[in-house]
């Protein structure tokens, strides 16, 4: 009996040894892989949104490996968890670039995490693909902004309201942090340049997770009852949206009276909540899951199969990663190497299909061209596209409507500068904010 047991355990040991050996050999082979860093929070407050993007990246990498990898090598994802902790983002980036020696990083969600990562990426000459809509006013040689700049989301949305719905009074409501504040500053300047009087613009900020919207909604109602068509442009973030829309519904404000156009409410945010009080309100994005193109349907099928859950949704930042990853792949193929400088040179001008039926292109300012779509929220949490721009809109790093930023230009090909002042004919360099 005992002997039998001993033999058995030796057998097990042997088997595990061979396993270990074989894994050793594979890892020896894998030294010849291309490493891709995935820098998304998997814990903490931002985990809700960012985990999806990590999964998207793993899916895209797996897909690319099935197609035979890149430059004849397999891609190897290196996933780290910065835990929604902004300084940790910088540390993890250093770890990815210095220790793991990844060739590109796909990551970040909030602007503050991007700002924290930026100096590290520049110092170690890495590549960062940033997939979320942001406030602009930034350009780095090492960062590629595949999400929307303000002129690819906020400005077209306001144009739609102004021209199609003939909105005359504006409520700019946002959560109190950098993205809403900068976006609202740009929007206020833009509206005033279009002849909207100051008393027709109401700006309101609330803290994160605000839940008592009674006065604000009643103020909006009063502001909107002056006989001029009124709309709310909302940069309200996260879960504060649920009580906000609820209060709108309770106070009897419907989307036909005062529509709310949100820049931070997408399919993912709507999937967890009862969308009834939101029906008819709008959101501006560069992608909707409901867009009916072959590319998009294929992407959705692939995603649902990969994640193994029929109820999951796709959203705009996922498409941004899809575009960014494909652009990087193409640029590496074009350059024939994963070397940062070569890729930075090669990627400008690269064109890849996006999911809404067009072709997005990387511009010299490291932003991309995207269509802008306006959708109305439906009962099922999806969007019905009611308007889209004629063609693609080129991302603009420096807003044309802000003092101090309208003279700046970003061009990493001809000027090799992220903030060239067209008036003084000088590159401002690192001092520009």
């Amino acid at each position: 009996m005992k002997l039998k047991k001993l033999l058995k355990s030796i057998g097990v040991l042997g088997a595990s040894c061979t396993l270990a050996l074989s894994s050793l050999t594979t890892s020896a082979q894998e030294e010849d892989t291309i490493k891709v860093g995935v820098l998304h929070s998997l814990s903490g407050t931002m985990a809700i949104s960012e985990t999806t993007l990590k999964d998207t990246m793993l899916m895209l990498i797996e897909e690319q490996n099935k197609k035979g990898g890149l430059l004849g090598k397999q891609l190897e994802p290196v996933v780290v968890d910065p835990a929604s902790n902004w300084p940790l983002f910088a540390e993890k980036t250093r770890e990815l670039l210095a220790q793991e020696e990844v060739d590109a990083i796909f990551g970040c969600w909030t602007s503050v995490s991007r700002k924290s990562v930026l100096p590290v990426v520049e110092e170690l000459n890495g590549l960062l693909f940033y997939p979320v809509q942001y406030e602009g006013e930034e350009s780095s040689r090492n960062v590629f902004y595949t999400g929307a700049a303000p002129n690819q989301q906020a400005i077209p949305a306001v144009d739609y309201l102004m021209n199609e719905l003939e909105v005359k009074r504006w409520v700019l409501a946002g959560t109190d942090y950098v993205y809403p504040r900068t976006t609202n500053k740009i929007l206020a300047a833009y509206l005033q340049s279009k002849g909207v009087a100051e008393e027709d613009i109401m700006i309101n900020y609330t803290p994160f997770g605000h839940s008592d919207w009674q006065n604000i909604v009643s103020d909006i109602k009063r502001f909107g009852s002056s006989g001029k068509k009124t709309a709310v442009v909302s940069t309200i973030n996260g879960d504060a949206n649920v009580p906000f829309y609820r209060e709108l519904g309770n106070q009897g404000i419907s989307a036909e009276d005062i529509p709310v156009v949100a820049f931070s409410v997408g399919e993912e945010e709507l999937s967890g909540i009862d969308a009834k009080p939101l029906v008819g309100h709008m959101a501006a994005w560069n992608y909707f899951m409901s867009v009916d193109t072959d590319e998009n349907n294929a992407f959705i099928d692939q995603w649902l199969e990969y994640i193994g859950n029929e109820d999951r949704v796709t959203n705009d930042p996922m498409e941004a990663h899809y575009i960014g990853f494909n652009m990087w792949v193409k640029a590496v193929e074009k350059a024939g190497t994963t070397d940062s400088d070569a890729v930075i040179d090669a990627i400008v001008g690269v064109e890849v299909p996006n999911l809404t039926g067009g072709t997005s292109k990387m511009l010299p300012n490291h932003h991309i061209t995207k269509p802008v779509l306006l959708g109305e929220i439906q009962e099922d949490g999806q969007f019905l596209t009611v308007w889209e721009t004629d063609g693609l809109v080129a991302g603009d790093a420096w807003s044309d409507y802000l003092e101090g930023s309208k003279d700046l230009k970003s061009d990493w090909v001809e000027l090799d500068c992220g903030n060239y002042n067209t008036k003084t004919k000088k590159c401002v360099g690192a001092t520009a904010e």
Partner: protein
Amino acid sequence: MRGGISRPNFQGESPDHPLKPDSDTTMALLKKSVCLWIALGAFLLTLPSAYAQSPAEPDFPTLVDELASGSLSKRGKTVEAIAATNHERAQTVLKALLEGSLESTRSDPRQVLIETGTDTYVLAANGEAVNADNLGRTKRIPIHNKLRSQIKTLLAQMNLSAADADVRLRAVEQMISDGVDGDSIALLQQLKADESSSDVQDAMDDAVALAQLESSDNETRLNAAKQLRGSLYPEVRGALQIVADNDSESSIRAEAQRSLDSIDSKLKMFRLGENIFFGLSLGSVLLLSAIGLAITFGVMGVINMAHGELMMIGAYTTWVIQQAFPNQIEYSLFMAIPAAFVVSGLVGIAIERGVIQFLYGRPLETLLATFGISLILQQAARSIFSPLNRAVSLPEWMSGSLQINPAFSITFNRLYILLFGLMVFFALLAVLKKTSLGLKVRAVSQNRPMARAVGVRASWVDAMTFGLGSGVAGIAGVALSQLTNVGPNLGQAYIIDSFMVVVFGGVGNLWGTLVSAMSLGVINKFMEPFAGAVLAKVLILVLLILFIQKKPKGLFPQKGRAAAD
């Protein structure tokens, strides 16, 4: 087509079946009815081009089928044509389209159905029930805002002669917000003669006067401006403003200005009332979240940092109840209240027996230990329910608002929570003042050795008191689940406010808690409009600190020997 419900299965016919001249439809069109004011010419123009050559207009079932296909703008025309048929099911179909319950099958020929419940459908055109099993997947017919407001307008026109006075009133109000044109003046005046409800008559007068403000006759404009004095419809105010600024006649401008002033003074009053209500409602939320703490902290002297998490447990209990009885959403809150009380109460007793009882008289250690417990409870919620917020549904009776007049309405959820907060307060007061448990609680909190000497089991009373305070926190959680997101962080948002209320009101005094919650709520809401939500909170804290400097024991300090130690 009046009375033509039992049209035999039209689905079998080809989509463009021969149209017999439908005498019923023509009859209905000619009848003196609301339909009069959709001009016949406009109606013919809006007909889909496919039928333009056809001698008769498409009948109701065909039009309903057309809703399933085509672009949004074509759907808008079809909707108008449906309204113009004056078919008795037209209203039902349009309402279903507006509410998103109008669906179509995916296979051809497309059937248009109304979803009347989970997986039960009726044919939109005639109301016949259909077997849901052979339908395959259905698709909701999408509409956008433009179409939505168009349907609302059409429904309002149909509802002008509805039997229910409320429906008629809403129809007139819808007309006012859509803008009243010359044609409808005559219609409204005619309807007003037969109108029985004075509210509806007043609204009709306002609607007519609003339209007459644009008349070319000076006398009419002057009278209209006079008539509109005190009318609270936002559209009226906007129109009067335009007249007061731009009218060619100075007498009319002055009249409009006078009407405007009277409206504004009324509005000011209502705004004050509204602000007070908002303040009281915020106060009731503060009261609910602080009242449990008033017992554990106020009466027992335990600094319980896990109080917020006990509310969170109550909120999650509501969610669990709703998941367990998905068809009883309307009654779920009544089940959730006792359930949350019991669950949170038991957790509270467990905390007291497991940790706090060893730490009495050591406030710093209690604070740290309960803070640790709060973190454990939050993480437990994350592990059990996921870090995502859970969607707690609002029962029908909790949504919407009580419309007192066009300028002043009270939302039902806030109103009920205000009443509920007061109920909980008085129930708790009664428990403490009238029951034997209350007597023992007061005895132990005032003089523990003496209470024990007369035979009170002090440690049992401690556990019960803590359980009571925790249970009340659970009930507060049920109320909060109706106002805010139910997630692991729910408690954190309220813990500071709760302590603030208890300290301000005076530790150990329930009445103080009530007064302080309500006054903090009202002060906050009066500051918010000009200070902003963020600054208002900061100002409140600063004021509170200054107040505590002056009166360290709060609004209603305890007097006598109990307060000495």
